[in-house]
């Protein structure tokens, strides 16, 4: 059998094969090729580098995923439970040439950095359809202090590398001060509390405190939150999700109240919601409902007004988490400063913020008129599978988060 010369021909051949495979017939076949280049640099000079190409194929049946890094016809025949003679050659396109990191090093400045370039080609074949799944190429930049930034390529003209952590001195704050969260931190909070709570698998299992709580939690501030994979300036963008459903903006919160869920085909069927939010952490991970880019909007106040009210300003977090068991959100603060009458007072040492969901809902008091696109939280992990995500969020003024 000759190798197909176009992706469309290859996908059509696999569609044909799906019809011929024995029962239980696969729901879909997923093909993936990724390329990654990494560089460690010091003062503008590359000290170490490497390149990796990963291929893979996955066959999904109800409740089962069989996957392989080997994409030869014998392996694929085994996954499909079909004769290798029936299996068409796998078409995987050549990755683009490895970029020259010098074009990025100029904007990073001196110091030690690790750069990772990531490119992915993927396709999904179902009995009635076959689609190539486009996603932007990404650049991940990591500073020596562990700060990371994820950016869509080509880099935007106003892209800036992560700022170094300001190591504050003196005592950490205590109690429940009024806190101003910078857009990157607000994005992490909304991602954890709103995004994860409204992922269809959690909602369907009755584990979402935002969708199944009684009384149903509602934000005091009438925020609108939308999951938008069509924002191609953000890392979570896709034209089709990883089941081949076109990506569309999904309203999750309207006027501070839950208004929708993120669903893959399975959860869409049981929640009566539109599919289109299925994402895979890689070829060995099944598709699950996942966040793409979360866009947060609200009736904004001038930022100087918010600053005058707040006692602390948090500008970066190391990590954020939402503990479903206790419905508690945790923010591990990397950089923050004390505020005095709207002016920066002193940098603070790192600390932790936490609050139950109900407190967060009540405590979001105001947001800024200005918003900022951020690559926070960057990589989102769920059950060990990581997908790139982005956000566009305002500054948020919060009451009730406890330091400690």
């Amino acid at each position, binding site marked *: 059998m000759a190798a197909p010369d176009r992706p469309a021909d290859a996908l059509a051949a696999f569609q044909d094969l799906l019809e011929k495979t024995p029962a239980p017939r696969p729901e879909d076949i997923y093909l993936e090729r990724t390329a990654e280049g990494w560089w460690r640099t010091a003062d503008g000079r590359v000290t170490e580098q490497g390149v990796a190409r*990963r291929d893979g194929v996955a066959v999904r049946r109800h409740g089962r995923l069989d996957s392989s890094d080997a994409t*030869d016809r014998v392996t694929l025949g085994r996954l499909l439970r079909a004769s290798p003679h029936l299996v068409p050659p796998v078409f995987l396109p050549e990755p683009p040439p490895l970029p020259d990191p010098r074009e990025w090093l100029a904007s990073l400045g001196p110091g030690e950095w690790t750069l990772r370039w990531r490119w992915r080609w993927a396709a999904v074949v179902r009995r009635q359809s076959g689609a190539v799944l486009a996603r932007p190429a990404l650049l991940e930049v990591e500073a020596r202090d562990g700060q990371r930034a994820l950016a869509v390529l080509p880099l935007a003209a106003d892209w800036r590398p992560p700022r170094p952590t300001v190591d504050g001195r003196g005592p950490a704050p205590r109690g429940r001060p009024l806190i101003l969260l910078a857009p990157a931190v607000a994005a992490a909070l909304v991602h954890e509390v709103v995004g994860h709570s409204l992922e269809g698998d959690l909602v369907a299992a009755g584990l979402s405190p935002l969708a199944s709580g009684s009384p149903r939690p509602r934000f005091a501030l009438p925020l609108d939150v939308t999951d938008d994979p069509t924002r191609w300036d953000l890392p979570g963008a896709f034209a089709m999700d990883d089941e081949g459903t076109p990506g569309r903006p999904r309203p999750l919160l309207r006027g501070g109240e839950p208004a929708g869920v993120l669903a893959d085909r399975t959860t869409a069927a049981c929640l009566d919601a539109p599919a289109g939010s299925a994402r895979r952490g890689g070829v060995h991970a099944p598709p699950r409902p996942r966040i793409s880019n979360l866009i947060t909007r609200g009736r904004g106040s001038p930022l100087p007004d918010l600053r005058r009210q707040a006692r602390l300003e948090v500008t970066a977090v190391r990590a954020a988490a939402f503990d479903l068991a206790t419905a508690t959100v945790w923010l591990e603060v990397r950089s923050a400063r004390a505020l005095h009458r709207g002016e920066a007072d002193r940098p603070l040492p790192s600390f932790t913020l936490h609050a139950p969901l109900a407190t967060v809902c009540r405590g979001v008091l105001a947001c800024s008129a200005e918003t900022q696109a951020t690559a926070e939280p960057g990589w989102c992990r769920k059950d060990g599978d990581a997908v790139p995500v982005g956000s566009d969020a305002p500054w948020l003024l919060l009451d009730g988060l406890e330091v400690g």
Partner: protein
Amino acid sequence: MSTPLGPAAEAALAELQRAKIRHEVFAREGETFTLRWRGGQWERRHALRAGVACRLAGGGTRGFAAVAGIAAAAGRDAARAALASAYPGPDPLPPRAMLGSSTVPPRPDAPAAGQAESFGVQLADALASRSLRVEEIRVITGWSRALLVTGEGFAGTANAGGALIEVRAACGQLPASVVHRAVPALSEPLAARLVEAVAGTGDLPPLLAPPPRGLYDVLLAPEVAAHLLLALLDLLGTSPRRRREISPAWGLEDARCGPDGLLPLPFDGEGIPSRRVVLLAGGRLGNPALTWQEAGGIAERAGGAVRASYADPPASRPANLVMAGGTVSSRELAAAMADGWHLRAMAGGVRLDRARDRLVLPALGVRLRAGDAVQVWPRVELRAGCGRLLAALEAAGDDPASASLRAAVTTPSLLFRQLEIG
């Protein structure tokens, strides 16, 4: 080469030999079967992972590239990509004279998918019979086989395998917590022990108020201790250590060649024979083993390379951490605490504050008075500096268990005196 990794490795070697430079080919093939119960349904994943990586050095340049697959084309592509992406730098490859294989204890065959299925069902039935709120059960079994070949004639193979079990369940009024075990083989007694670990908090007194922050004696269950040991090593690796007070109860080593621990292997990620690396024992801090390049060519410091996957270059990391066990049961250790906390399961990730040399470990905590449970709280936080942890270890229990985290960790319960809980 008679292993199934042959075609990829042989093609890579042939390609690199033509380039007439120092080179090394690493190929790994493995299989994992994952059985997961959640929301009343079983889900199965079967994954074959395979790939080949090439490192080369010569003429003042070096290169690294990896490609997925087991066919000759994968090996050829990896070799060509490594040659094409070579860049100026020192030779990272250890000399041939350094390479070899240590003897490691024989291992049982990794559990097959069928064994994972029957174990999973047996575990689910046993948990159901105890009226626990089970949110998730995960049983993962797998094996891997690695082949390392150099252009200077070294060839070695390393096999690994085992199983990992995680149960997320709740009993009584407590929120769900996770019990995690890594084992070489699945067995009926293991299922019973897991059920006891999950159900162990069921008869505890109801929740009272959150604990006031203060200094307490703290007993860590093995799976909590495993997280603490890795975090402690991270802190120890952050900055040079001054002279410190170190408790004689410490007996921590990276037992890379066994015989103890979950993951003994005959050589490290660069082909240097495995050895035991003492990290913390006899009241002294040892030096962790490093990659050949980071060791600066000092043989005694090398042998610490780990490859996280075929696509990752060797990096300095512990491989098979083992904390020496004591002769006292965890019940006796608990009885030795006048007023303390027993941290039974993790309730989130460990947070490191490297700048301040401190860590925060959240865990499900049981308040003990003279060994009796008087209160349970779903999330207490242990806060400690590196120096305090080194000094405050009082004793280790006789109940070692293994966890598969960033490294394999085998540790018994650990009793510390006067750590901050809040």
